[in-house]
């Protein structure tokens, strides 16, 4: 386990589906519920728009954790997008784990537009987990760092 600097702040990338989780983040904001500033949200049309290479790219470019948020299974705006995303992410996460990369660095959460509180709780929890893990060393790419 690497030593974690005292003032260490992780970089977290959150892919949020336009229809549920992004609106959930909005609701968290308008309800005055806070979530860490380290979480950088990228809006995607659907969780299944997230190509596994997006996640790897985020890690390559220095992310310490990546979270994908989508509509609850059954509630996809496009009927079935999140079901496909679920299979893809399951296989990708299992593969990362197989390579010995900390499985806590990646996560999928289903957050609806009405779950501002859940969004905030999920992000706080994920940021805490990633902070405890420290910097992402196992998936970094020094060619992409300044």
């Amino acid at each position: 386990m690497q030593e974690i600097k005292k003032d260490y702040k992780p970089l977290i990338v959150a892919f949020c589906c336009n229809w549920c989780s992004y609106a959930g983040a909005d609701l968290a904001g308008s309800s005055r519920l806070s979530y860490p500033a380290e979480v950088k949200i990228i809006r995607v049309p659907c969780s299944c728009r997230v190509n596994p290479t997006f996640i790897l790219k985020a890690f390559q470019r220095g992310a310490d954790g990546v979270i994908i948020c989508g509509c609850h299974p059954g509630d996809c705006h496009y009927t079935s997008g999140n079901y496909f995303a679920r299979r893809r992410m399951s296989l990708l996460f299992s593969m990362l784990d197989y390579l010995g990369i900390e499985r806590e660095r990646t996560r999928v959460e289903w957050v609806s537009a009405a779950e501002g509180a859940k969004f905030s709780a999920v992000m706080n929890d994920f940021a805490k987990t990633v902070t405890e893990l420290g910097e992402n060393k196992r998936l970094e790419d020094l060619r992409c760092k300044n």
Partner: protein
Amino acid sequence: MQKLNELALEKAKTLLANGTVARVLGWKKGELGYDLEPAVFYSESDLEGFIYNAFSGANLSKYLIEESKKEGKVLVFLKPCDSYSFNQLVKEHRIVKENVYTVGIECQGKLDVKKLKEKGIEIVDGVIENVDDVTVISLGKEYNFVKEEVLLGKCSVCEKHLLSYDEVISLHDKRTPKLDRFEIVKKLEAMTADERYAFWKGELSKCIRCNACRNVCPACNCLKCVFDNDASGIASKANSDSFEEKLFHIIRAFHVAGRCTDCGECSRVCPQAIPLHLLNRKFISDINRLYGEFQAGEDDVTKGPLTAYTTGDAEPSEVFGGNK
């Protein structure tokens, strides 16, 4: 087993002569006896270079993407593993099936040149193959091996049988594998995360990014590959860390997940002897465990596991199985 070569050659000559096919896709003799390469033969005199023996490991189906789009029919010899790749490519509409005349050919496992070299055999003058053992003639000496000692990794665990062919050339029943193909995957899964990381760092840091695994893979058949992207920002840069090609390998394996027939070509061609098939097999074993037994290429119609779903699929947080 030498009879197979004669039968295949005869078949090729007959079909060329009577005009059923315009060309033949097969294996050509190399310089050193073991370096057979895929080749297209257009005439009977061309066919002098044709050979089918224990070194015909190369999977020919990928070459059909180009060959089946040319004028006239092409005759292809498919070993059991090649026939799965063939089906998969037909399913993906990459091969024009009507332009291909397929001859299934018996295979009792192909030899691994790297393993022979480890045993001190540098030059091969001839090879006499039986179902369970093989004799390699090198510089006048005969070396006898039990198949397991010298087979390609993919062949020692092969459970495949011939699928999809117009004709078949076969003299013996296929030998049954003595090893379980998921054995090493299971062993890795039983390790701790740190041990797994150390294992893969050791293996993947040997990678020289020659792209041979991608070029040979029948499932890697995109017209424009994601790795040929000059804008990636890393294309012209040397690694600053020996493990930086890991991302390449994760993406390569993921892109063929659910379509990989486990033909093992990636590991066969790797000049650095990285066990790349273990990445693909992890996906196969996960797919079998989570979404039901699935063998890509078993037919040319069934939907792949990543293009289908059920509402009760496992959540990504609970897919780690018995891994520590």
